[in-house]
Every structure is written in C-alpha cells, then in structure tokens.
C-alpha cells in the first residue's frame, strides 16, 4: 500500500498539547507510509483539497487522518478520499483531539500517544479492503403500528403522499388515548371534535387499509422488504355486514361488562361499540362476558342483528402483508398507581386517575358529562389533584417526567370550575412544567381566573375521614407548613409508561428500548424519529413522554422520513456487513442463533450447510464474528485481522 498521513493541528486544539510535526515525522517510519504532513485545519476546504492533491501526487491508496473523533468527521473525510478516487473504506482516523490533546496536558506523553494511535490506524488500514454497497428494490408500502393520534397523523400524511398505508390498531377503534379525552389544553377545545374528522379521514382514505382489533404477530425482512404477519383477533361480528346500528348493544343482557374505554368508571354490554365516534364503527363481543360464549346460551344479539353479522364461532385470522418500512406509534399506558398505598392505591372509590376523571368530564362518559363521585354519585365540592403520581419518583422506579400532566391537571381544574361553579380545586404539585406555546398562560389562568389553589408540595397520605370525605395530608413547601385538606374526590395525575407489550414489540422489530419500555431513537437530538434498525421509525409517546402537538409533529416527521425513503426506487446498504468464508464455515449455526437482527440464515452449498448473511439486514454489530469459533464470519471493516493488527501494534512494542 501507499499510505498518506495527515496530522491535524485543529488550530491549537491539538497542536496546543501535541507536537504534530513530530507525530508526522514518526509516522514516516510506519510500514507503507509514503507521505506524512501536519496541516493546521484538515477538515477545512483547503485541508480536504490537500488530501485530494496528495492522493494524486503521491499515488496514495490509503489515507490516515489524525484529528478529532471519527464520530465527528469520518463521513467528511470518507467523502474526501472518495472524490479523489479512493474507496471510502481505505481511510482510517486516529482520534488525537478528544482522546489525546483535550484530556492530557503532558506534551511528551500526548505526542507519544498520538503517534501510537496513528500507528494503530496504519496497522488497521493495511488490512482494510475496498467495500462496495449493494442496491436493492423497495416495496413502497408502510405499516403503522398504533392508531392513536400520532399513528393517525403519520397514516394520513403518508397516504396523502401516495404511499399505501396499513394501519394496525389493537383496540376495536382507532383514536387512542386522545379519543378518551374530553377537552384538550391549552385551547380547551373538544378532543372528539378535532380528532373525529381525522379518524373519519382514515376510514375513507383510499390509500389506507385499517386493521382494528389486530396485533403484530411476526416480522421478518429488512428495510425496503419487510414481511409482517398480522393477527386479526376474533370480534365475533362480521364487520363486512355490521352497520354499527347499535341494536345489539341495546338488547344485550350482559350489562355488567367492565367498560375499558371509560377506564372502568362504568359498565357496558358484552357486545358493544366503544363510543359513538368509533372508527371503524363496528360492534365487538367481549368473549369473557358474553353469555353465549361463556355459558353457551343467549344468542340475543344474533337474533336482533338486522344484517346477521354476529358469528359466535369466529376464530383469529392471520394475514400477511409486505411493506417497505414500519412506523411504531404504540403510545403509552398508565403506570400501576396502586403501589401508592399512601394515596389509597386502588382501595378508595373516590381516589381516581386523571384519565378516569377525564371520562367523568366527557359527555360520552358514564355520567354523561356530570362530575359525580364514583362512591355515592354525589357532586363533589372539594377536589384535590395530586401531581407526579409515578413521575419523577425514583422510589417507584419512575425517575422521568410524564410531560403533560401539569397541563391536563390545569385543564381539568378549569373544567371542574366550569362544571361545578361552587367547587374548589386544589393542586399539589412539585414544579409546574408549562413550556409549550400558550401553556404557561393557561396554568396562570387556572390560578388567577378559576381560583384553583396550587400548593407546592407532596402529599403524604390520603385517608377517609370516616364521615364520607377524605383527608389529604401534605406539605406546602412554600409556606413551610403541613396542610390538611378535606376532599370529596381525589384525582391522581398518574405517570405514564410504555404501552403494555411495547418490549415484546421492540424485540420483534429488533429495536432497543429503555428500562421503562420506551423505544430508543437513533440519536436523542439529531435522529429523534429514526431507530437503529433501518426502516423502522418512531412516532408519539412510544419514544418518550410528549403531548398531542408533539405527537402529531412526530407523526408527520415519520411520514416525511417514509416519503423521502420511498422517493428512491432502490436503496443501498452499508457495506460494513458480515461476510461468510464458506470454506471455513462448518455450518454449526451459532452465528444464526446469536444475530440480533436475523441477518444470518442457513444455506446449502454443494450439499453442505453453511451460514449466509443477508447483507441488507445485517447492521454490522459483529456479534457473529465474535461467536464463530473458526473465524468464518468476518465483519467487514472490523475483521479479526483488522482488530488484531491494532492489538499487535500496541502490545508488540
């Protein structure tokens, strides 16, 4: 090889504590190095031009730049050498800024260390091979998992962009959590009025196929070419025939079915349509509560149904779809707030979650929009809201902020005053987090116009006073005294966690998730809707707590990603993938077992079983290379020999 070395001064960032000229001089003694220099700013336009010129002038076929972190400028310099005609993988970087000049003051030691890092880079480069990307076709169809507001927005944007969309929803209607809300902050406009039309658009859009009451069963493939299996759960109603008239529900004798749409604040019938604006507006039978299905006698709904849509022996159905990319928008669930025993964790009927309170406020809710205590149906007079129940609380393993509770609590307090003008609301809070547009103004209105009493402090206990009310004991940290408030109803702003089943879905999608089940984005700041699995995007709360505007924005952002991806007919892979030396491979299959991406499969070559890499699926982690005992699978650009060359450069000296 003919290798050129560029020891960057980075102004004084490196040259301040590293003798760059000396490093360049030492580098000339390394094998295959035919040129070494120490430019002041290598990444600047003249610096890059100098590299290109050196490649031509000195017939270089390999370049090492010693400068900042490769996480910073590796892509830059790869493009530089590529412009000069070299393969981008015949380039290595030595990080002598973040790892040398910025962390040590000893000039001699730094200079020596920098030279050694260059030596390692040269040793590796001498084992590098040109790598070429492969291109493959894209199936221009997108799967969106989750029909909440984020998923709906993504679906509509993709569909409007001409991309066929498959929208998957676990419940029998789309709408997600937003559909359960009465009003939304900070405008206090009706949730159903703004979400409803979008839901109708989903139902009517020619590019959207909706699978409600369905779940993702299995997924295989890779960006551009995923195959997904969808389990359509048995609804016991033929939706082709169901008109959504609701006659079945009226006559259903099983009237004690817990109403999950109403967050268990009321009951419904075994066959039901969750709420009037449901999309699809189709009936579903709850198998656990239907008399026909549990006891084998009833059959009222089948008799009453004008279209004969009820099918008691319906089975789950699994359908297969081919898509090019996937958006996960699975939202959230409330954490198990019953761990807060001191707040009466689930034992006092009038201590309820904010989502339950939302249903009490809603006209389509169990009380028809009248606020009544669950215990005795009386109108409450004193309402206490407790914030951060399962948010920012390490003691229950929820150190994070749920993001939107401050705002909806203010909204609920405001609505409470509207509903019950003679009521008094109290809010126990830790901090008020209202950074959005018009948010702080809104919370101020709650205090100033609606007379909501905000108490900064935590509640230590809630207990029944024995006379039908509850005593809320807490502390007011601003006044520095303990407070006790008699409340008729206590509303807990319960913290959120990733939707149940999120971890299992993440494993199917082969994306990472954090300790709380929230999916990991590719980069916190710069790639907030991408994941580390190519072709899988994230929208809404499944990635982390956020409110409706942010969820909608992310939904649109993922749609933009999808449309950009589908703007190309063919995709190129990252050629830093594993390669199998089929002569060395003995077909033991250990790599196949370990691959986190399913990128290895068995193949038969001349009657013998061998491993085979699906290059488009391979993400380049190299676990297979580590696993293969005979070194038959090698991760390109991080082969055993490349790493060994670095180890040897360091240790054999």
């Amino acid at each position: 090889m003919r290798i050129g070395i560029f020891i960057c001064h980075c102004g004084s960032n490196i040259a301040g504590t590293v003798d760059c000229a000396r490093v360049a001089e030492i580098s000339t003694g390394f094998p295959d190095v035919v040129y070494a220099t120490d430019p002041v700013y290598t990444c600047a336009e003249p610096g890059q031009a100098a590299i290109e010129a050196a490649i031509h002038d000195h017939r270089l076929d390999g370049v090492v730049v010693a400068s900042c972190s490769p996480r910073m400028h590796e892509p830059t310099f790869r493009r530089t050498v590529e412009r000069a005609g070299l393969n981008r993988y015949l380039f290595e970087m030595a990080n002598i800024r973040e790892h040398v000049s910025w962390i040590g003051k000893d000039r001699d030691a730094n200079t020596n260390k920098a030279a050694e890092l260059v030596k390692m880079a040269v040793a590796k480069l001498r084992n590098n091979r040109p790598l070429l990307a492969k291109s493959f076709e894209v199936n221009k169809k997108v799967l969106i998992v989750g029909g909440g507001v984020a998923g709906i927005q993504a679906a509509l944007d993709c569909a409007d962009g001409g991309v066929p969309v498959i929208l998957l929803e676990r419940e029998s209607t789309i709408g997600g959590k937003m559909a359960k809300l009465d009003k939304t902050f900070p405008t206090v406009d009706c949730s159903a009025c703004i979400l409803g039309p979008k839901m109708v658009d989903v139902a009517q859009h020619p590019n959207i196929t909706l699978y409600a009451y369905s779940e993702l069963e299995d997924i295989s493939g890779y960006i551009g070419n995923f195959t997904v299996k969808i389990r359509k759960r048995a609804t016991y109603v033929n939706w082709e025939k169901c008109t959504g008239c609701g006659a079945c529900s009226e006559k259903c004798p099983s009237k004690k079915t817990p109403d999950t749409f109403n967050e268990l604040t009321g009951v419904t019938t075994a066959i039901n349509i969750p709420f009037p604006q449901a999309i699809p507006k189709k009936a579903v039978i709850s198998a656990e509560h239907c008399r026909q299905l549990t006891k084998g006698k009833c059959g009222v709904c089948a008799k009453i149904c004008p279209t004969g849509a009820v099918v008691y022996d319906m089975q789950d159905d699994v359908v297969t779809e081919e898509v090019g990319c996937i958006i996960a928008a699975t939202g959230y669930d409330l954490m198990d707030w019953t761990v807060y025993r001191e707040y009466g964790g689930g034992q006092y009927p009038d201590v309820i979650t904010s989502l339950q309170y939302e249903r009490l406020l809603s006209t389509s809710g169990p009380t028809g929009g009248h606020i009544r205590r669950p215990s005795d149906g009386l109108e409450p007079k004193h309402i206490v809201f407790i914030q951060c129940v399962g948010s920012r609380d390490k003691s229950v393993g929820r150190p994070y902020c749920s993001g939107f509770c401050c705002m909806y609590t203010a909204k609920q307090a405001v609505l409470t005053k509207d509903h019950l003008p003679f009521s008094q609301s109290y809010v126990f809070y830790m901090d008020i987090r209202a950074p959005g547009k018009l948010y702080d103004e809104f919370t101020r209105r709650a205090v100033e116009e609606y007379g909501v009493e905000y108490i900064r402090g935590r509640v230590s206990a809630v207990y029944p006073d024995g006379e039908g009310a509850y005593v809320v004991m807490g502390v007011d940290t601003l006044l520095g005294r303990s407070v006790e408030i008699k409340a008729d109803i206590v509303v807990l702003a319960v913290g959120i966690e990733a939707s149940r089943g999120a971890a299992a879905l993440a494993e199917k999608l082969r994306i990472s998730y954090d300790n709380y089940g929230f999916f990991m984005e590719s980069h916190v700041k710069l790639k907030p809707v991408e994941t580390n699995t190519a072709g899988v995007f994230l929208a809404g709360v499944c990635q982390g707590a956020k409110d409706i505007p942010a969820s909608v924005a992310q939904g649109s952002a993922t749609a933009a990603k999808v449309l950009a991806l589908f703007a190309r007919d063919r995709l190129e892979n990252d050629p830093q993938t594993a390669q199998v030396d089929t002569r060395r491979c003995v077909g033991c299959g250990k790599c196949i077992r370990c691959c986190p991406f399913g990128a290895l499969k068995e193949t038969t070559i001349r009657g013998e079983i061998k491993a085979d890499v699906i290059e488009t699926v391979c993400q380049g982690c190299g676990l297979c290379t580590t696993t293969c005992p005979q070194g038959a699978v090698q991760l390109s650009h991080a082969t055993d020999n490349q790493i060994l060359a670095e180890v040897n450069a360091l240790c054999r000296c």
Partner: protein
Amino acid sequence: MSTIRILASDGLPAFLSFLSQKHQRVLVPVVKSANKRSVIFEPWRAGMPVVLEKATVPPKEAVLPQCETLLTYKKSKNQEDLGDITVSLDDTPEALSTAIFACRPCDARGFRVLDRPFLNGLFPDPYYKARRESLTVFTITCSSGCNTCFCHWVGGGPSSPEGSDVLMTKIEEALMLQAISPAGEALLKDCDLPDGRDIFPRAEAARKAAWASLAPAPDLKQAPQKIAALFGNDDFWQSQTSGCLSCGACTYLCPACYCFNITDEGDGFGVHGGRRLRSWDNCMSSLFTHEASGHNPRMLKTPRMRNRVSHKFSTYPENWGTFSCNGCGRCISNCPVSLDIRAIVLAALDNAG
C-alpha cells in the same frame, strides 16, 4: 577394536559436565512430572536429574526444531522517497553444537532418515546441516523390547548402531560406552573414563538377551508393493483409519518425520523487523495439502493416513531403499485412540496377499 570406556553410575554428572565442555548443549532425558508423566530431552545443567528411559518425545528437536527462525528481515525507507524500501536479510543458521545423551537406537536411526532430504539431497539445508554436523549421538541400547516397539521389523534392533556416535549398554549399575563413529572415537579417547574392554563380552551378552526378548518379526519385504497396490482401495483404508482423529501426535513424536511449514511474521519495520519461521507440519492436517487454488486433494483423514503409512512403508522404501519408520512405536503408544500402524501394515500384507 573401537574404543570402549566404562562409566560408573556415580560418574554420570562428571561425564555430562565433560560433554558440556565439548558441546554448547548436552540434551539429556528428564522426567516431567504431571499426572501423565513424560520424559523429555532438555539441555543438561549441573544438578539436573537424568533418567535413562526411552523418551516420550524423540530428540529430533536437536536438528529440526519445532519452530526455528530461518531468517530475519528488516525494511528501511529511503528518506527522500518513502516508497523506496530496502530489505536486509540475516539468514545465519543458528546452530549449537550438541550432544544427545541416552537416546535409543530407533531415535539415532531417525537422524539417518532426516539426513536424506536435508543433507543428502540436491540442495542440502544449511540450517539442518550446521546442526547435524556438530551433533554427537550417545545411544543407549535397549535391554528388551516393549509392547509397542518393532524396530526389528524395519531393519533396526535394540542395539542397532546406525546413526550413533557412541553406543552405550547398561551393565548392572554401570554403562559401557563403545565408540561407533570417528567422532565418537575421538570423544571417548579424550575423556578420562577408565577402559572397559574387559566388560565388553558382558555387554554383548546383554544385547543378545535383548534381541532374544523380541517376538519374531514378520517379513515386510512385500510391504511396499502391496501397500502401493492398495492405493485405490478406499474400503481398506477407511476400515483401517476410521478411528483416527487426524491429530499430529503420531508425526510429531516420530523420529523420522520431517515435514515442515514456512510462515512469515512481522512487517519488517520497527525494532522487531520480520521473521521467516520454519515449523513442524504434518500430513494428518488438512492444511498440509491445502493448495493455493483452494483445492485440497486430501480433504479427509483416510487419504491422509494412507499417505503416512504409504510414505513410511511404500513410497519411501521404493525410492530410497529403506523404510522411513524406525519402529519406535511412539505413534502407537501415544495415539489418543491407540491406532496401531503395525496392524495396518500387516492387514495390507494380508489383504493384498
């Protein structure tokens, strides 16, 4: 009559010390205690306990090390033109003048086999030659046969002098030393051991007794042709080698196996430069016949074992007149699965006959 000396058992250290003055190293058999005890040749140092047993590993290392540096190379750059590289080589053979003390006749005969390619061919190997020419072999005759050895089948015997400079025979607690070669003569003349001509008859008697302890040897005259005739008989070879594990124990313990591999290590730059290594290789290994094209004519263990047996008992004797096996039996006693080359040869004689 050649020079004969007598070495009393308590005179051994002094004699080894005398040999050390004449040679840069004296290899003696020592016990390596482990749960499986082994006897290995090691350079003698004063105070080292010596055993006169047949060694687990023959002293082939003395002339053909397990791994040796054939040459070192250094690359240097022209500072005016860094792409212009000069390579300097150092290929001076590293040869210590060596005495082997108390190997067995089969081991000594092994050197004769090694001499053929390395010394007597068209291109003598300078590394081997340098070591071989400064080698003195003190062989101790066997007092009996053993369960795995068969030197008398292949032209040797418990007191065969071939390859030895001095032949030693144990008589009670003393050793009788008999010069075989001129080098041996000179050494014995030079030492201050007492003359032992009068005990020579007793030594002769002991040697005869050793011969008498051996079972009668089969006639292997037909072996080369018969084994050659079986070359294409896959069933035969398969049935004989199905237990083989394809390891290198048999060849690496063989005093007459001499195959090697050459590898280069190091890029030639820096303080370490580069080295060209010659290391033992063996025909039981798949890589042995792995061709540059990727093709391998001996992919399976059966043709590899066939090669080993044929080489020792057919092709080598057909070309060079003697077996390249000395019947030391180490390949049998050390085979992890107790494969017996004698049985294969006999089966070949039977089968073709």
